[in-house]
């Protein structure tokens, strides 16, 4: 027997009130933690995929669309650009490296992207089996692609025109899987990679097109000189091309998200506040309903401090339990959200570990829970045992 046991039993004796406090706190903590997790995942995912791509070169249009399409592969591209024009930019002295991208086909919703080996290298992607592509129509698939479609080295498939559906299948050209990449938690996991010639050949180019007329979709650029950001737009002024800065576009995007996040955060804060009111009422109720019991325990040798501790423990147990339930709830929500979003956004949201901020959240919840219990508990310290015993029925 100890105070913790007595507090535990008391909570168990008023199940409805206890459940209400737990549910409210679990939802409050769960929502705040879910927001923290999803914000972090979103930021991580964006940042991991930007790596050190400084500029994206592509056809004129929405700069945000250009970034979303070519860095994250979640939007349609803005159009095609001429390889010859793009190469002028790549060779510009202020540019360190350019990774060309060409795409327009998919296999079961996964994009087939033609590029150079510099593309997977940029994301530190490694192979879990097979080898990198050498010839046209040899493809290396991302881990998510391989897992979803059960692809293995040596398998073949047809591509479909477009980036989403499978209505227009190119049955004349067969792709061969030559390698499967290790999971890298980047956009690589969701792509099917091959060389650029493959993309050209799928679309009827049998090598008779002049080099000058060949087109690609975009180029990921790394700058050598910071002035590139100012200079390159001038270089491409006469063309149909534009450059966009991933960091700026993504900042703009997350700021727009931010308004919604703040509203959700306020609602979550409000729910937490309600849950603390509920803990306050629960402990206060304990005190009123059990006044006589508390006096009785005093006659049996309990000190006021002991009774106070038992009431604090009730508040502490409630807030600890609510906080833990909340964290579990947010993990469950995250798994659910990841499944909903994985299809649309093609990103894996994993890592459900405890964030530092969540540790602080739990600490705060327990602290406020204790305070919510401490305030009504003061009257247990001041109780007049003689009067309480005499007034009892």
């Amino acid at each position, binding site marked *: 027997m100890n105070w913790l046991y007595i507090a535990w*039993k008391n909570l*168990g004796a008023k199940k409805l009130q206890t459940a209400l406090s737990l549910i409210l706190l679990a939802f409050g903590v769960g929502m705040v933690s879910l927001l923290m997790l999803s914000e972090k995942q979103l930021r991580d995912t964006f940042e991991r995929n930007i790596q050190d791509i400084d500029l994206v070169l592509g056809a004129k249009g929405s700069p945000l669309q250009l970034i979303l399409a070519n860095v994250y592969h979640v939007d349609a591209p803005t159009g095609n650009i001429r390889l010859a024009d793009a190469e002028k930019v790549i060779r510009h002295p202020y540019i360190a490296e350019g990774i060309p991208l060409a795409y327009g086909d998919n296999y079961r919703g996964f994009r087939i992207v033609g590029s150079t080996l510099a593309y997977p290298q940029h994301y530190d992607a490694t192979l879990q089996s097979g080898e990198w592509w050498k010839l046209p129509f040899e493809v290396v698939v991302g881990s998510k692609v391989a897992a979803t479609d059960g692809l293995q080295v040596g398998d073949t498939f047809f591509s479909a025109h477009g980036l989403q559906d499978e209505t227009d299948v190119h049955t004349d050209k067969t792709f061969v899987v030559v390698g499967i990449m290790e999971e890298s938690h980047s956009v690589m996991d969701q792509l099917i990679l091959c060389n650029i010639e493959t993309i050209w050949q799928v679309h009827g180019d049998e090598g008779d097109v002049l080099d000058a007329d060949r087109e690609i979709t975009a180029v990921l650029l790394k700058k050598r000189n910071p002035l590139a950001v100012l200079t390159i737009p001038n270089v491409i002024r006469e063309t149909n091309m534009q450059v966009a800065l991933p960091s700026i576009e993504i900042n703009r995007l997350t700021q727009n998200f931010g308004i919604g996040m703040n509203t959700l955060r306020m609602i979550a804060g409000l729910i937490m506040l309600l849950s603390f009111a509920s803990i306050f009422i629960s402990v206060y109720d304990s005190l009123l309903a059990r006044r006589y019991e508390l006096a009785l325990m005093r*006659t049996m*040798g309990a*000190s006021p401090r002991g009774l106070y501790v038992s009431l604090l423990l009730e508040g502490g147990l409630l807030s600890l339990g609510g906080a833990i339930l909340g964290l579990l709830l947010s993990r469950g929500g995250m798994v659910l959200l990841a499944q909903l979003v994985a299809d649309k956004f093609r990103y894996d949201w994993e890592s459900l570990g405890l964030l530092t901020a969540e540790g602080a959240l739990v600490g705060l919840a327990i602290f406020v829970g204790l305070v919510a219990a401490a305030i009504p508990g003061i009257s247990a310290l001041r109780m007049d045992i003689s009067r309480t015993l005499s007034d*009892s029925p």
Partner: protein
Amino acid sequence: MIETSHLSFRYSADSPELTFPDLSCPNGEQMLLLGDSGCGKTTLLHLLCGILRPNQGKVRINGQDLGVLTGKNLDRFRGKHVGLVFQRSHFVQSLSVLENLALPYFLTGQAADLDHAQSLLDALGVGHKAKSRPQDLSVGEQQRASIARALVHRPAVLLADEPTSALDDRSTQAVLNLLEEQAAQAGATLVIVTHDQRLKDRYDRKVELKSLAIPTS
């Protein structure tokens, strides 16, 4: 052994002073404190166990002057040496009957002797209710369980507050027998505080409290 000397008490500065005759009851003996409603019986009971402090005079239990004990020490001393039986039985409702019997041990910092608690419940005929919630017992069972709880940790003094006032003659005899037997077995001094005149002739050692000449509320 419980004894008082020159005991007086007032609830507040402008309320009348209650004075009490000196009492003394040696170890293992039994004493009756008889008085009408409003004569300060409950006040005296609370003074005897240290829930209230007298304005003047002393209460000694086994030679210990309660007046020199303060705070936690007084709570501990009361818990250890005084068992209380109330007119209506009260328990910690969320704990089982047996756990309620473990409370006097826990609250005075002693290791609980659950075997002794169980055998006491058995002896009082409520052993089969040890695991039940107190509110699931009948009123009679509750009273027997509360006697067990008051004696389980072998206090020096058993104070019973109106143990019989709501009972018929037959039950009154039964409860008194029970109290006397159990107190004797535990070696505790039994002090019964009551207005129940039926008990008057049962005890040699008795003190009649004077009714106060003031209107009671």
